[in-house]
């Protein structure tokens, strides 16, 4: 098995970031595949919480929606959404929450609400869903998104989910905010001031390209590395078990 899609690289890089994590709040699409890949590789004990109210889901197929029936059958526990959001998420039980982003800025502030003005949007996006409270209450936030000047912007048009708020998080927040941003080009972290910093480049991606696809003067880590390529086993798991139809990864 040779070669891989940018999304496969993104999923693999995300899965590896879950090493050592215990409880993950899962979204659909790439995050879902990344979490299930991590369970089969770096983090066998990882426990998955789905916003629809499911703890310990064991989906027999790749769920298209966040409320797929395969999430319920055979899970450890099903709760109402109040218990899920209040007791699990706000209660501080979630170690990692995954978020996507239509726009993200250097401080990890995320927009999934509108492109343009809220009152007269160019593009109306879905909005928060659970993202706003995940950004605030998950102990760490991992962002998965494709990287371009359209998504990596100087200023987000709307802050749906707060990032590092220019480096300051209010007292008493248990959430550290975004710690990892995985894209199709590389893996980013955040420095002490809460500013995004490129930490590794995916194989074959030149630094200039990442700079070109970022809407601000991107900080680059002193020990910038290359993301180890997907292993044959990682690709096999994705292609044969987790997303055989390639719905989310091709």
């Amino acid at each position, binding site marked *: 098995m040779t070669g891989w899609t940018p999304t496969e690289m993104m999923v693999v890089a995300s899965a590896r970031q879950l090493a050592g994590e215990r409880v993950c709040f899962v979204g659909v*699409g790439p995050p879902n595949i990344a979490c299930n890949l991590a369970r089969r590789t770096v983090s066998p004990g990882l426990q998955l919480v789905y916003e629809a109210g499911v703890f310990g889901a064991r989906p027999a197929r790749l769920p298209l929606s*966040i409320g797929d029936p395969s999430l*319920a059958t055979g899970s450890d526990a099903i709760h109402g*959404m109040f218990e899920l959001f209040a007791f699990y998420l*706000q209660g501080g039980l979630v170690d990692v929450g995954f978020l996507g982003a239509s726009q993200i800025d250097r401080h990890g502030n995320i927009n999934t609400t509108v492109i343009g003005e809220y009152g007269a949007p160019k593009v109306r996006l879905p*909005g928060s*869903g659970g993202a706003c409270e995940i950004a*605030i209450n998950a102990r760490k936030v991992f962002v998965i998104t494709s990287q371009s000047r359209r998504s990596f912007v100087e200023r987000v048009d709307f802050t*749906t989910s*707060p990032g590092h708020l220019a480096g300051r998080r209010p007292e008493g927040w248990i959430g550290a905010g975004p710690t990892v941003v995985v894209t199709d080009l590389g893996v980013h972290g955040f420095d002490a001031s809460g500013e995004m910093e490129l930490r590794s480049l995916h194989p074959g991606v030149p630094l200039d390209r990442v700079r070109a696809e970022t809407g601000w003067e991107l900080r680059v880590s002193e020990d910038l590395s290359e993301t180890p390529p997907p292993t044959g086993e990682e690709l096999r798991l994705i292609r044969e078990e987790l997303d055989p139809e390639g719905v989310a990864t091709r």
Partner: protein
Amino acid sequence: MSKVTSMPDAVRELVRDGDTVAIEGFTHLISFAAGHEIIRQGRRDLTLCRLTPDLIYDQMVAAGCARRLVFSWLGNPGVGSLHAVRRRVEGREGDPLELEEYSHFGMVCRYVAGASRLPFFPLRSYEGSDLPKVNPRIVPIESPYDPGERLYAVPPLNPDVVVVHAQRADAEGNAQIWGLLGVQREAAFAGERVLVVCEELVEPEVIRADPNRTVIPGLIVDAVVVAPRGCHPSFAQGYYDRDNRFYREWDAISRDPERLEAWLDEWVRGVSSHEEYAEKLGEERWAELAPGEAWSGRVNYGSYE
């Protein structure tokens, strides 16, 4: 006293022009049957509430039933956009649609506050988000024990009408649900009028044999409608699968106003009932959507005399 009635009569009885209506169900148990009947009866100026407006509200908005949406995630789950809604919101079609926007947890807390007769509900969200700037109903609140500790509050949501689908109910409206529960219970308790739609009408003995499974007590239910397969393209755990193919097909249908209108004419206005809609889908489609069996065990409540 039996509350069982037909969907046309239930909608005629319970849903009025201008009402605030919540057809709830988080992906699971969305009563498309009720939404389609509301379209057939031509209700207008509704304020439609749901965490995820989903296809049902895209259809009701396209059909001209809605004036305002109260929601937290405005998309086609797993697919993309609700195009009919977007056209209205982006000013590309019809009158602008009013939006009242929260996060999922905010909407959940609004139903809990409504069900509990609380004037507000506190939660740890919204700090640093622009949502409170565009929705003045999301307000900061301090802890009475530590004025330095700031949270946000959302107001109660008490819809005029709440519609929830359940796998089974008795004639009094005692309803049991398994699989994803979403906010069915909280929304029902928050509703001024409550319509329970079910896959199966069962004898009270079936309900009473497992009272812990009852999510909605008949006490708060105004009408019960039996509508098997009434959630399609949403699903009923253990009865039929989510029709993901239709959710994908809807993307193309709703992108094109004419195709959407034709679809409504054929599949909603062109049929007299959801039974007819379900028949029209054909047994082949229903066979594709039939799940295998995965039975729960039984538990002993014990008889105490």
